[in-house]
């Protein structure tokens, strides 16, 4: 039976495919030094920022797109992309000034931008295309000395912090996509948690790509000073588009002594249609540094969208006794491809890292886990435990695991476990026999499989993520 049924239930359509009619301010397509200057000028940036962009742009010209990933990436013409788009209207001061069309879009996405937001205790720095539209809870956060604003505002109001930490984790020369981001990034979020402060709410950003042929180049910088704590949520959905869209973001996290940062992502960009036409290319560089002793960084990601995903949220464990975690669920359906995983670089003594990766492949999807665990000679008594599981739905999809380990001292312990399983017909029939449809059964089984990762998400996000897994793998039955 079930290849047919599985085939059927995995043919769900993308449910968030709509666009809003907001006039956008787009720079002509193509990339040159003039375009970089134009972006910087549009944003009224100081000279040092322009210099940084130009330095990155010149370096980018010497680089080639990486080809080592287990991905089939169509040729990208970087001269046919528009590198900047912003909603035309000036930044609003209150909700009344926000474009009603935009509010409706957020409504459809279920983003609680007004009262519901206050109730759910989340501050949303909503990013529409490239410019921050509205930042909430800023005041109550600023009483604690917390800075949560758009990257542009940070450049304007907190240049010392930006200059000190920007590019300190991901250097401008890091990789092709990161370097491109350094040259043309449009906006993003900035977070600073001062010493000894525990951020009282989940900080959240919703991203959305919404202009034809517009590259999206976000930049996020999170700094957690000594003894501080912050949990940051990033979630995205994008409207349906025919043209492929490039997304090359950078996220940098700095955790000082005893600081803890928890970064959670639910990614649901348009994955392309059933035949693999369209969809977002998501080439992201995310990296954190546990700079101080006893610091901790935790990455949790639920990746259901994008046509191609190239993403390795990583940690540099520099401080002694620091620890890092990576929890991931990656789903590829139809013709989606994902090459995702993490890097854990152990430098300090007694550092520990934990990797839990759950891949789910359906349709013709290709899902690869790629991970590096590197223990430096000085990282005595370090520990790593990695577990990589793959679940296959149907017989035309693929799951691949590429774990790399480099252990350079003999006091450290590195463990790796991997499993591959197919969704079981008997499990589905068992659910059917209890009155549960095949579609719901797949949802139940997949959510059960991914539970350990979903449990890491903050409550509201976990519910959303569960729905998303179900929507991604189902939809056409019943």
């Amino acid at each position, binding site marked *: 039976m079930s290849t047919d049924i599985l085939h059927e239930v995995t043919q769900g359509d993308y449910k968030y495919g709509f666009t809003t009619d907001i006039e956008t301010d787009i720079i002509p397509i193509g990339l040159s030094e003039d375009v970089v200057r134009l972006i910087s000028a549009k944003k009224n940036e100081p000279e040092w920022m322009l210099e940084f962009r130009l330095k990155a742009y010149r370096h980018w010209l010497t680089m080639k797109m990486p080809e080592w990933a287990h991905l089939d990436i169509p040729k990208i013409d970087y001269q046919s992309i528009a590198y900047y788009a912003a909603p035309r209207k000036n930044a609003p001061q209150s909700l009344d000034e926000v474009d009603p069309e935009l509010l409706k879009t957020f409504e459809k996405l279920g983003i609680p931008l007004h009262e519901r937001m206050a109730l759910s205790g989340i501050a949303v720095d909503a990013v529409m295309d490239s410019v921050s539209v509205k930042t909430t809870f800023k005041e109550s956060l600023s009483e604690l000395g917390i800075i949560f604003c758009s990257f542009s505002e940070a450049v304007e109001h907190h240049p010392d912090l930006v200059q000190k930490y920007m590019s300190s984790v991901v250097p401008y020369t890091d990789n092709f996509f990161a370097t491109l981001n350094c040259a043309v990034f449009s906006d993003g979020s900035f977070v600073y948690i001062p010493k000894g402060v525990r951020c009282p709410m989940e900080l959240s950003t919703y991203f959305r790509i919404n202009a034809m042929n517009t590259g999206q180049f976000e930049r996020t910088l999170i700094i957690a000073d000594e003894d501080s704590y912050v949990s940051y949520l990033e979630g995205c959905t994008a409207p349906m588009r025919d043209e492929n869209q490039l997304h090359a973001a950078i996220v940098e996290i700095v955790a000082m002594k005893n600081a803890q940062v928890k970064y959670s992502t639910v990614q649901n960009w348009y994955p392309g249609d059933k035949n693999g036409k369209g969809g977002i290319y998501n080439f992201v560089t995310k990296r954190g540094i546990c700079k101080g002793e006893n610091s901790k960084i935790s990455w949790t990601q639920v990746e259901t969208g994008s046509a191609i995903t190239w993403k390795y949220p990583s940690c540099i464990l520099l401080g002694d006794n620091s620890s890092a975690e990576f929890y991931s669920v990656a789903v590829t359906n139809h013709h989606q491809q994902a090459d995702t995983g993490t890097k854990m670089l152990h430098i300090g003594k007694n550092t520990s890292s934990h990797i839990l990766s759950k891949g789910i492949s359906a349709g013709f999807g290709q899902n690869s886990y790629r991970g590096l665990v590197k223990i430096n000679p000085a990282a005595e008594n370090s520990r790593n435990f990695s577990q990589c599981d793959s679940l296959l739905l149907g017989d035309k999809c693929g799951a691949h695991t590429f774990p790399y380990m480099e252990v350079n001292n003999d006091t450290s312990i590195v463990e790796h476990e991997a499993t591959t399983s197919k969704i079981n017909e008997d499990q589905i029939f068992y659910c059917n*026999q209890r009155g549960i449809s095949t579609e719901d059964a797949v949802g139940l089984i997949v*959510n*059960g499989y991914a539970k350990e990762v979903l449990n890491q998400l903050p409550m509201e996000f976990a519910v959303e993520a569960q729905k998303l897994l179900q929507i991604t793998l189902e939809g056409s039955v019943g």
Partner: protein
Amino acid sequence: MLEIKNLHANINGKEILKGLDLVVRPGEIHAIMGPNGAGKSTLASVLTGNQTFEVTKGEVTFYGKNLLELTPEDRSREGIFLSFQYPVEIPGVSMVNFMRTALNEHRKYKNMEPLSATDFLRIMREKKTLVEMDNKLANRSVNEGFSGGEKKRNEIFQMAMLEPRLAILDETDSGLDIDALRIVANGVNKLKRPDNASIVITHYQRLLEYIVPDFVHVLYDGRIVKTGGKELALELEDKGYDWIKKEVEENI
């Protein structure tokens, strides 16, 4: 309630059921016995819509509805329950979540509102007591790490939750020690009502000491070849199946 006429079914092109007839009325308990490979479990699979099997001929009606046209989930919602011989494990899915999903699907089918969390947990507590199921089991993932006996008890618990009109117990006694057997049988007896019925598939007479059948059928070579009262089970226990095989062959 259930009427099976001249049922033929194949697996991978091999005919297993070869013209089976059976009528079950409300309030009755039917035992189906027979040697290995006679088609006992196939019957359970075909009635519940397992698509590994292909029905090639015959009719099955359940309260007048053509059962063979219904999806497996609709057969369940119509009130047919199968206690599996080998219940599967579903890692990560809690019994609470599983049962609540199932029960609410049944309610939706009957145009009833979903149960509130409080009501659901109350019903779950009641039914757990009924089948003497450990509290801890209900908080674990579906059948994950359950012993053979715990899995069977969990099947009866689910049956108690879903209150089927027709329960099919497929070798529920296999792998059970005598205490577990008694608990499972007690559960089944407590759930017995004038308006529901059971088909008990078993190899041994042992289970029928606890669940007393109204009819005992012998399934051999894909057909019911002999039907009697509960004393037929004792006779089979005593004499084995060979005399029946001989009888059948003589009739050909």
